[in-house]
């Protein structure tokens, strides 16, 4: 069964390196291996690639090149932004505002700071996963040094009112960080318009390789270094630059931005088709996340009475690669903190499925998936004591 043609539907977890991007990398590995800090030709060729990549990435988010710093991943960008801002502003205060549905790459640095004496306000979200900008305004205190609210959620796809939040932070002179790892390449981003001070990006979500990311730091904003070392990245991030990764990231981001509208149309059509079909054909299912303020490629649905891993496992055997909650938590037995935050009871949170579409997804995959899902859900419900209890209760009523 595992020889079946596989249908990858987990583009929010990671994406393959697209061919145009792999070409860029190969050219560098084969012809351009110099250390960008080196004085001679090989080094200067490599340095030029980094300069150009920085310009490209800056262009993709409306920033200036010297506001872009390359990192090794979205997690590094998040850690750097949050810990760096916290250390740099410890004199001003030690209060940070974030939401309860951030990625672990934001939650865990905040928790680490909390252990070091910082105070974190965890904003609740509504049933659709939306942060209320007014809650941000109310939470700001004189000692607030940072607000970190993600642009789009990796599990339920909810897109936050970033412009409003940015405006509030700017008015209150509080730094605003947003994790745009999932939003990049899917939504148009203009850091100036949105009043963003710090913005995290990751390559492997936009068809660049794993192991590269970036942090936008608005000109004039000072954050402490996370990786102290050589003079790379204008002395702000040490470590010999991942030249091929950086060039790949720039290429992939540029392509993604140029395809934003086409992709939004194509992917959201598949998204809405899947949501429509599942809701129509499978009872006791609920859509998680917001109906419209949502990433174009994200579907997240909970099926009552059954458990998510079983669904994934059966889908896997049928050739589908999907996820339940965040891939990062697959080592864990707890249900997703995001699903709990939008108010799902534990047992329903356990039964959730995330499908995220991407480059190779096809409309026909949607139809086949719905049919297969319907069978799987039924099979698992037939085994579930919760479902028989429910049926018995229904009969009695």
């Amino acid at each position: 069964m595992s020889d079946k043609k596989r249908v990858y539907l987990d583009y929010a977890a990671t994406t393959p390196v697209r061919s145009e991007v792999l070409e860029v990398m190969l050219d560098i590995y084969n012809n351009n291996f110099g250390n960008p800090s080196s004085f001679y030709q090989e080094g200067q060729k490599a340095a030029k690639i980094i300069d150009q990549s920085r310009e490209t990435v800056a262009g993709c988010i409306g920033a200036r090149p010297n506001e872009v710093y390359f990192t090794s991943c979205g997690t590094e960008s998040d850690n750097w932004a949050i810990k760096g801002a916290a250390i740099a502003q410890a004199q001003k205060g030690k209060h940070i505002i974030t939401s309860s549905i951030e990625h672990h790459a934001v939650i865990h640095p905040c928790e680490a700071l909390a252990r070091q004496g910082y105070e974190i306000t965890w904003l609740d979200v509504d049933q659709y996963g939306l942060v209320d900008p007014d809650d941000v305004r109310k939470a700001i205190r004189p000692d607030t040094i940072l607000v970190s609210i993600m642009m789009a959620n990796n599990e339920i796809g909810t897109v936050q009112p970033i412009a409003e939040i940015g405006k509030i932070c700017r008015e209150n002179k509080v730094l605003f960080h947003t994790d745009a790892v999932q939003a990049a390449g899917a939504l148009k981003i203009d850091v100036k318009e949105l009043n963003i001070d710090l913005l995290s990006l990751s390559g492997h979500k936009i068809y660049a390789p794993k192991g590269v990311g970036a942090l936008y730091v608005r000109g004039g904003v000072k954050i402490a270094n996370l990786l102290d070392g050589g003079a790379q990245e204008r002395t702000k991030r040490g470590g010999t630059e991942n030249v091929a990764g950086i060039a790949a990231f720039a290429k992939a981001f540029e392509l993604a931005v140029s395809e934003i509208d086409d992709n939004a149309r194509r992917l959201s059509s598949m998204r809405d088709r899947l949501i429509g079909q599942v809701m129509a054909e499978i009872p006791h299912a609920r859509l998680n996340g917001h109906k419209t303020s949502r990433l174009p490629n994200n579907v997240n649905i909970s099926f009552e009475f059954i458990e998510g891993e079983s669904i994934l496992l059966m889908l896997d055997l049928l050739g589908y690669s999907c996820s339940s909650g965040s891939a990062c938590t697959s080592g864990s037995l707890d249900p997703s903190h995001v699903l709990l935050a939008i108010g799902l009871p534990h047992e329903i949170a356990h039964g959730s499925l995330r499908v995220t579409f991407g480059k190779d997804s096809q409309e026909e995959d949607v139809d086949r998936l719905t049919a297969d899902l319907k069978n799987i859900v039924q099979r698992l419900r037939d085994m579930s004591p919760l479902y028989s209890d429910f049926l018995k209760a229904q009969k009695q009523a």
Partner: protein
Amino acid sequence: MQYSDKVMDHFMNPRNVGEIEDASASGTVGNAKCGDIMKVDLKIEDNVIVDAKFKTFGCGSAIATSSMATEMIIGKTVEEALSITNKAVAEALDGLPPIKMHCSLLAEQAVKAAIKEYYEKTGRLNDENKALFDMLEEDPH
């Protein structure tokens, strides 16, 4: 998740799914909050488990261990069934990932819970055998 072929077989083709209408006893363990509930029904005749059925809400290994556990106890005396440990169930499945070992514990608990009910119903629960069911108090998670 790296499941053995045996686990996958019992997950995809679970044995003994269902309920026994006139069960001699049944046991339910786990809770929805933790993501797994197992219910085991036993039909016991002349102290021998002649049939066992299960319903499970849970992950792949929860379903597979339920299936394996019911298979292992059918045809056994109640005492023999009581001596089957979670490790034996896991071994019969060619092992479980470490993070999933609690599922086998849950399966052992479900069987024991059913047998305890049987002991209670038949007045056989006493100070001597009570200790056999102590593990029902353990939190498998």
